[in-house]
């Protein structure tokens, strides 16, 4: 029943279109002689039929509009879900970038004030101790270096190996 009605409606639709089309072709012929543009098809207000292959109508739709039209094949809920997921991902990436900027700035500037001077001074102190040890080792022999090792965790394992003396390098 419905299909019959649809068909009949279609036939009814086609009939006036055909007559309009024939009149339009006659019009176009006249206008082609007159030299006017093909935009008259739009001005006559004619709906685009499914079987028409007019190039004028294809140029009216841009590529983006045609791709957008393709999405209409998916259901509305799927479309909205995918859209919100995409927007959420983009938004959260942007937020995360901004947050990580602030976090890194706070972390590094605070550590430059709170921790860096202490670390530098401890390193310098350890290097000075090591240099003094090496000096003593050079001057007084290997045994002096072992006995003079400080309690800063710089234990020499056994007698120091001879290749540590710079004179041998």
């Amino acid at each position, binding site marked *: 029943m419905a299909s019959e009605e649809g068909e009949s409606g279609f036939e009814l639709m086609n009939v006036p279109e055909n007559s309009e089309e024939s009149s339009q072709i006659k019009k176009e012929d006249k206008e082609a002689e007159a030299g006017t543009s093909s935009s008259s098809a739009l001005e006559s207000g004619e709906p685009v039929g499914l079987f028409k292959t007019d190039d004028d109508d294809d140029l009216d739709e841009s590529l983006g509009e045609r791709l957008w039209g393709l999405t209409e094949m998916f259901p509305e809920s799927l479309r909205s879900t995918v859209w919100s997921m995409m927007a959420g991902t983009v938004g959260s990436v942007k937020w995360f970038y901004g947050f990580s900027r602030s976090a890194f700035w*706070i972390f590094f*500037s*605070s550590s430059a*004030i*709170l*921790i860096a*001077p*202490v670390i530098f*001074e*401890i390193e*310098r*102190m350890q290097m000075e*101790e090591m240099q003094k040890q090496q000096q003593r080792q050079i001057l007084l022999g290997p045994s002096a270096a072992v006995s003079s090792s*400080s309690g*800063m965790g710089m234990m020499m394992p056994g007698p120091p190996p001879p290749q540590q003396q710079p004179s041998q390098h």
Partner: protein
Amino acid sequence: MGNVLASSFSPSPVTPPAPPTGAPPPPSAGDSFTSDETVKVNGLNPGAIEDLHKKCKDIFPVNFEGAKLMVNKGLSNHFQISHTLSMSSITPSGYRFGATYVGTKQLSPTEAYPVLLGDIDPSGNLNANIIHQFNKHIRTKFAAQIQDSRYVASQLTTDFKGHDYTASLTLGNIDIFNGSGVAVLHYLQSVTPKVAAGAELAYQYGSQVPGGEIAVLSLAGRYTGQNCVLSGTLSTAGAHICYYHKGNDQVQVGVEVETNLRLGESVATIGYQLDLPKANLVFKGTVDSNWTVGAVLEKKLQPLPFTLALSGMLNHAKNQSRFGCGLIIG
């Protein structure tokens, strides 16, 4: 002996209405009422309430801004002078001359009384402290600050040190002509060798005060553990709790929470102090709940008697930073 080892920074004032004690640093000779290097108190005397939070507060750095050059010279066993040049864009730059005199009355090898401290600049702005100990029990301190030829602040403190208690009375900014002033009464009692409890009554009168006079009572307590100290004061105006912990010879940590019920705000601060005697370094750092980090580094540059002080403070919330450097000679 007699050589007064001036600490770098002066102590904070007694109560909010009382005037600040000013720039000149007091000598360590004035620490006779407080515990020394160890956490345990000397005998049973708990010390004064002013020093209740002292162990914790000493950990926190005092940030300064700008450049500071200080030359200390000891002229004799009793007398010491200092010249200070401070250059900064925040506080007005200037030169200050300071003098310290330590008297002849000696109570112990490290203390001598009376002690007179003064600090003056070329415009005549003066900070002066006089500390004297009359006998074993009574000590008096007078501090005055004069700016533009008038007394901006003055404070007279009398401490009575008993067997296991300390009572003190402080009168501040007593103005006879305008009838205004502040009086504070402290009492701190040692309940057990580890626990001390006390109270403070602050009274302010004058025409500026709503109602003519106002009094605030607050309670104080302190618990001293093996290597930690927990102290707190509680009043209708707010609460102030400090916790101090000594990790080892090199590391000390302090936590402080201060609440002001009138303004409806509270601040928590964590501070730490690192002592590296091998590197001649003392480093103090602090992190605040106001999104502020600050640190002060003091290094002795051997073999000459120079001390380099570097201070940095960064406020993340306001995006403000203050840096200072100082050199102390002698």
